[in-house]
């Protein structure tokens, strides 16, 4: 029973994030983009529970509305690599041979580059912004998924049901996608959940460099980076999104761990 507590907490946190992203106006007391020249950098008060930033924008509302962008980052920055990586892993795991060798070299190249540096370079080439960030992450992040999937497929390939499928005359496509994939996909999915937390962190690193979401759109990392000049004088500017990002990360990790335990995936 106790093993399910983290999972429950994780799911609750994620649900909270999801609801904030879906209907921010239910929770946010103010328009997140509205300036208030009378309350620039106002400390937390009954009017502004978590204070305001240098434009007089309500930090709580900014943080709640940003959940939408962060969730989007979590999903897309994980989704691209997941799809591409899984497909590649499935194919090279199944066919092996020269395709596997080429994959091995390519993967070596990608993993020997410092991840963040490669993403920064790609974003510099394509220009800043979320979509380009997703492309950059997909270019680099697919390797982990491909490796996980490849390993799993190679195990499954030797399984009885594959031989049975062959005997029954099923096409390779059918065996691969209808039988091998569902059996091999669990570790990949579990990893994907924790990967979403990493994606949000990556978004914040790019936000620190000004290369992530572009204003007035904001994600938590960019909000924290914005507030770093007020770290000592108005800590609430960076603290509010800081707490949000930690809670979201916690949600994804706990859910990931819980899921792994539930599905009995070795980590």
């Amino acid at each position: 029973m106790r093993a399910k507590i983290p999972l429950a907490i994780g799911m609750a946190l994620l649900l909270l994030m999801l609801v904030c992203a879906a209907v921010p106006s239910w929770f946010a007391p103010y328009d997140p983009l509205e300036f208030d020249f009378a309350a620039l950098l106002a400390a937390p008060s009954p009017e502004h529970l978590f204070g305001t930033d240098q434009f007089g924008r309500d930090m709580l509302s900014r943080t709640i509305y940003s959940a939408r962008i962060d969730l989007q980052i979590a999903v897309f920055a994980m989704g691209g690599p997941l799809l591409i990586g899984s497909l590649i892993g499935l194919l090279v795991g199944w066919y092996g041979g020269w395709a596997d060798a080429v994959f091995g070299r390519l993967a070596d190249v990608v993993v020997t580059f410092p991840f963040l540096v490669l993403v920064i370079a790609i974003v510099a080439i394509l220009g800043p912004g979320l979509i380009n960030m997703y492309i950059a992450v997909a270019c680099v992040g697919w390797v982990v998924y491909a490796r996980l999937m490849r390993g799993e497929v190679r195990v499954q390939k030797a399984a009885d049901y594959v031989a049975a499928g062959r005997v029954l005359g099923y096409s390779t496509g059918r065996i691969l996608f209808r039988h091998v994939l569902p059996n091999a996909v669990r570790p990949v999915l579990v990893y994907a959940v924790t990967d979403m937390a990493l994606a949000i962190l990556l978004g914040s690193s790019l936000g620190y460099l000004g290369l992530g979401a572009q204003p007035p759109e904001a994600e938590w990392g960019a909000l924290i980076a914005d507030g770093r000049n007020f770290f000592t004088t108005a800590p609430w500017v960076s603290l509010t999104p800081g707490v949000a990002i930690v809670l979201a990360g916690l949600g994804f990790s706990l859910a990931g761990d819980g899921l792994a335990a539930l599905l009995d995936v070795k980590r």
Partner: protein
Amino acid sequence: MSKVNGLTRRASLALAASFSALPVMGLPGTAQAAPVRGGKMVYGRYADSLFLDPVLNDANVDIWVMTNLYDTLLLPTNDGVGVQPGLATKWEMKNGGKTLELTLREGVKFADGAPMTADDVKWSLDRCRNPKNGPWTDLVASIDSVSIASPTMIVLVLKHPDPSILAALATFNTAVLPKKLFEAAPGTTDEEKAKAYAEKPVGTGPFMLSSWQRGVSMKLVRNPHYWKKGEDGKALPYLDEVEFQIIPDDSTRLLKLKAGELHGTEFVPYSRVKELKAEKDIRMELWPSTKVSYITLNCHPKLKDGTDNPLSNVKVRQALNYAVNKDAIIAIVTQGLGVPMTSFMSSTTPLHHKQTLYKADVAKAKALLKEAGFPNGFETSCMMVAGNQDGLNTLTTLQQMWAAIGVKLKIEQLDNPSLTKRYRAEDFSMRTASWTNDISDPGEITTYFAYFPNIGSLHSGWQNKKVDALYLASNEEVDVKKRAAQYKEIQEIYAAEAPIVFLYETPYPVAFRKNALGFVQIPLGNNLFETAYVAK
């Protein structure tokens, strides 16, 4: 360097600081008690120097510290508008302003102990005005020939009378270098020699380079042969050593200052000034500058992608200006430290003509947009250097202000080379930018901002034949009143045509520990450490 401030081509003059008049009234740095000799000052910089050759460099990170190593014939005064004796003690205009005679200071030695000769001066001036030598040759383009009349007399013959020639001789690129040492440097071309020489530069300035780890730290030690005297009648500088530490992150730099690991630091973010003023161990210094911050507008009829450009219509540009509440921007971006621009040049620039520019008026802005055929506004975009907080704060505010007249602004953060590439290709709608003068004369900023043939008026494509003609005439006008009238007209036309969105002027925010005194930053940006000292 545009990393922090937008425009790259800014810079500064050479040396400075007269011995007697150091604590200028109204300026921050104050030396009350007798200065202390000896010791070391550690100063935090946001970026390292790149190339310490006065002629071939192109960045403020070089120019602003180079004046500690080199001297020029004349020096800018600490208020940045006049000149005072430097390596030359006297100067005289003759022949209707076409001949300039300069008497050299006697007994000046380079940091290696070798005496400075007339030969070094002539060679240095000839090198800096060689049109092949870098971006600064324009400033001394009026010089026709340099000759040595006697071992202590240099004569410049000008092509035409030049109202800015004295200021030019107080600008960093005319610094005097030791000819023999430079020519003995390895390499065949001037550029190769400059590269080798700038590794271990030798000048007549108060300090000399002792070690330099690129991007990390630079150490300057006292030049024992420096010619200027301190308040105590002995040779400057007071300090034995200045160490520059390179710390790009603003927060970290300030934490180091607070912890006492630095004596001083430059580029304090405006948002931190109030907090530092309240610290009991720290003294905030706000030095008057020539810095203006503005938005460059593309005025070409079409954008690079072939679509019509609304900004080509002067009424649209005026509307954008009217929609901006400069006071609000100043409050948000500079935390109240700036003042609204009153011309395209800073109020510290000679011949600046003060105007009230576009007082915020949303109704008027809307009416102008309607007249221009955009009753519902339009969409446009503005480029900025990624991660620059001032730029981001400015554009976030403009986004709101322009939304009120229906103009939808998209912010494009680009890394510096990408932005520069598009700017030079004139492939942009707007960009954030700032400027500081390198020379104490209105000519430099005007040739970049308003005189089309140079760089197409900040690559905006805006051209006004009247302005171009006035500018050319002003370059040869030695009557100060007539030149002032020409500049008044240039500034009025520029304001009415609005090829930029006028924003604000700001001082240089520098912070020091209470016991670190005597530093001077002149409006052109030069950091002067010759009179700096650390009290016990």
